């Protein structure tokens, strides 16, 4: 097996991996190697041919491939090596990485630091228990997107979308643009899971009906999908008898959740946060294993590639600077409290509080709420608060705490992040 040493090894050449690799290089790492399983770098962005990328990071509206292209070019100019068509088979806590490829066979890399940037995958039909037959025509929205945008095929022409995640909304519009009849987007919850702008631009602008609190319970059709059975649900998501209907279709696209891909992480002994499905990380995006970092959708499922880039730059910078000796050790934990589903980072290095850097916290709300104060407390005492006009689970909340404000925090007490009392659910 060919064995080599590298400074930073990044797993995945999507926006997270590329962002981390470039930053690692800028911060002094000499050899930065990105391992990518697909034939091209760019990750899922290559199939996201719609626009809407880069508004925050580049202040410009780009398509997915354009957004990825900027990082691919930059990586190449910065001498970041990208090995495509190569799969990572294993990572161990000593940061040894084994890869397999059709071109190089098996290789062993010894890395000073590793950045996990494997992205996420989609939940499937069986994961949400849709009963019925097993006909052709049921696909996850992302797989349908790949078929349509990369391979050049359509799975059918009468489409039902289940789930209002962003990919579902984007694909509802995409199918309509392809000349398909899009029967509607069905969502179990009383609100959409995607960005508000996608609801407007993908559904409203194309007169695609959105059915909230209505879900697919069963699929029909022996070989080919012939239709789905749907039912309305109440606020507790209990089915309402008598509201069943049959919606004829030959294609069912599922956009029912994304799950961070952490199989490699788990095998390496990395601690996973059950709330995010990703590794527990500190402010540098370092996992519980020193020298192994994680960023992008492998850490938490983001809404925007721009946020992935922000997070990857944090991880890439820290990965380049990582030396075994520079670990502080003492960390306090950041926990999600009332009204908050999760917070990233989940840990803070105490010495960080004394530094002159702001800290960005990513979090998701549990329910849509208007006029909310998000508060950071230690031992029940409010240390920081920020008021937001509106929060909803489908849109990530980012709160930046300045160095001055950070100084108010005690260095030895855990932080709880919660929605302040007295907010009205909207």
């Amino acid at each position: 097996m060919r064995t080599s040493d590298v400074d930073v090894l990044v797993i995945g050449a999507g926006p997270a991996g590329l962002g981390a690799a470039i930053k690692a290089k800028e911060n002094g790492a000499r050899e930065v190697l990105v391992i990518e399983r697909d034939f091209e770098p760019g990750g899922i962005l290559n199939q996201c041919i719609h626009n809407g990328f880069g508004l925050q990071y580049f202040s410009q509206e780009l398509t997915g491939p354009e957004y990825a292209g900027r990082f691919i070019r930059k990586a190449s100019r910065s001498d970041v090596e990208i090995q495509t068509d190569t799969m990572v088979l294993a990572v161990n806590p000593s940061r040894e990485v084994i890869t397999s490829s059709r071109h190089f066979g098996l290789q062993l890399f010894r890395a000073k630091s590793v950045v996990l940037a494997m992205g996420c995958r989609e939940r499937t039909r069986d994961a949400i228990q849709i009963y019925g037959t097993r006909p052709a025509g049921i696909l996850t929205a992302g797989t349908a997107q790949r078929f349509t945008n990369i391979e050049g095929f359509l799975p059918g022409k009468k489409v039902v979308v289940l789930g209002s995640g962003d990919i579902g909304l984007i694909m509802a519009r995409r199918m309509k643009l392809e000349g398909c009849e899009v029967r509607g987007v069905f969502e179990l919850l009383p609100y959409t899971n995607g960005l508000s702008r996608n609801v407007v631009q993908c559904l409203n602008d194309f007169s695609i009906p959105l059915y909230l609190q209505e879900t697919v319970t069963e699929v029909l059709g022996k070989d080919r999908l012939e239709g789905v059975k749907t039912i309305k649900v109440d606020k507790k998501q209990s089915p309402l008898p008598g509201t069943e209907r049959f919606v004829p279709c030959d294609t069912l696209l599922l956009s029912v959740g994304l799950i961070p891909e952490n199989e490699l992480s788990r095998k390496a002994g990395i601690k996973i946060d059950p709330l995010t499905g990703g590794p527990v990380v500190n402010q540098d995006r370092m996992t519980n294993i020193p020298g192994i970092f994680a960023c992008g959708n492998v850490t938490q499922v983001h809404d925007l590639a721009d946020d992935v880039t922000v997070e990857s730059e944090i991880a890439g910078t820290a990965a380049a600077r990582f030396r075994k000796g520079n670990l502080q050790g003492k960390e306090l934990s950041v926990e999600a409290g009332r009204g908050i589903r999760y917070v990233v980072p989940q840990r803070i290095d105490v010495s960080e509080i004394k530094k002159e850097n702001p800290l960005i916290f990513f979090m998701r709300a549990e329910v849509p709420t208007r006029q909310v104060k998000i508060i950071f407390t230690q031992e029940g005492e409010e240390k920081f608060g920020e008021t937001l006009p509106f929060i909803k689970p489908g849109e990530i909340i980012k709160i930046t705490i300045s160095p001055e404000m950070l100084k108010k925090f005690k260095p030895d007490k855990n932080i709880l992040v919660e929605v302040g009392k007295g907010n009205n659910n909207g």
Partner: protein
Amino acid sequence: MQKFDVVIIGGGVVGCAIARELSRYKIKVAVLEKETELGTGTTKANTGLIHSGFNVDKNTIKGRLNLEANPLFDRLVSQLNIPFQRNGSLVVAHNREDYQALLHSIEEAKANGVKGIKWLNKDELKEKEPAINKDSFGAVFAPSGGIICPFEFTLALGQNAHSNGVVFFLGTEVKKIITKEGWVEGLETSRGFIRVSFVVNAAGLLADTFGEEIKNEGITLKARRGQYLVYDREYPVKVKHTLFPRPTEVSKGIIVTPTIHGNLMVGPNAEQVEGRDALETTETGIKEVLEGARKLVPNIDTSAVIRMFSGLRAVANNDFIIAPAKKTRGLVLAVGIQSPGLTAAPRIGELVAEILKDIGLGLKGKPDFQEERTPLKSPGKMNWGERAALVEKDLDYGQVICRCEGITRGEIRDAILSPLGAVTIDGIKRRTRAASGRCQSGFCGPRLIELLKEFAGISPFEASLRGGETQILKYRSKELLLKGGENIADQ
């Protein structure tokens, strides 16, 4: 016109076991299978258990064959080179009444020659199987119970038979058995007439559909459906043994078991269904399965389900029918093969050969019979050194196509190009496990379609889940728009 000594109708585990057995002899044998792949009926959708023979009635054919077949598996799997594990069965008692009944069965099982069977008290059970319901009273431990992949087993039997000269006609439907003066003369099939003097009906759920000759035997089959759930291999709820509740008169009950590939699986329930293709899963069925499973392992939920499926068993009466037909000479029946058909299959093969001999087929051994089947390569099971060496020799084993199960291009190529190779996505899946993991082909689906084209010449529009009308792709991008455009122009 084709001519054979024996034709076996049905390429499930029973048909393939019979084919392999007959391939030991100097006769011309063919297997006719309606579907384009082997093992797509009852075979593909069952629990995958090699039953210990605990609690069988040895006066029934199915009971006797179970007892006789179980010990054959160690040798058989080493010949066929397929994974098999005697993980042991635990039949769990929930109360004193169960306990009394099970103790009685232990004595019977011992008398029937079931090896190593014994009673475990509550503490011993808990130690053996920590996930077990803490209210359990104890369990019968039958160490000879095992797990196997039913499809792999069937394919291996088929491939071994094939390499010993058996001819397989896939995608070939039998319409009618043709007789002359009470003797089998041939078969009318979707590919024309086949002349043959001996026919074995191993057609599973369709065994009663080949015309008068079968109707005359007075066989009526019913379909019994069982539903299952399969879990992600990373699901923390795990069992080592196959856990059964105390069996009832009609069924072995809802089981919790590991699969040979390391997934947790639960099921089946037992429902009488109309027709022969009611393969759907239902809310009631799945709930029943979960309830049953939770009696054994209370922590089971639905958080890591990767697949729900349902399977049908052909039930004739309460027993297998393995016998020469009463009214048609030359016809042998191997029908009504419900549970424990998978376990009994090797003995069914031997029994059918004996019956054929009894009714006049001359069976002379083949000196060059090859009992070993060369397995497909499996880089994921190798250590790093072996794997690196394999990839060095053949780089196709270096490219991982299915990320969930770690299946390589080389393995998929082999699955397509090997004898009786895969021609559908399900075919690739069952041979290699590609697409059977947590993403359920979300990522590798497009690649598998490409590989079917590259190695089998199947166009992307023909690529299907399992043949029939199950093609995955229907149109080219823009095709609908162009068609729509024409329509608009027409108006």
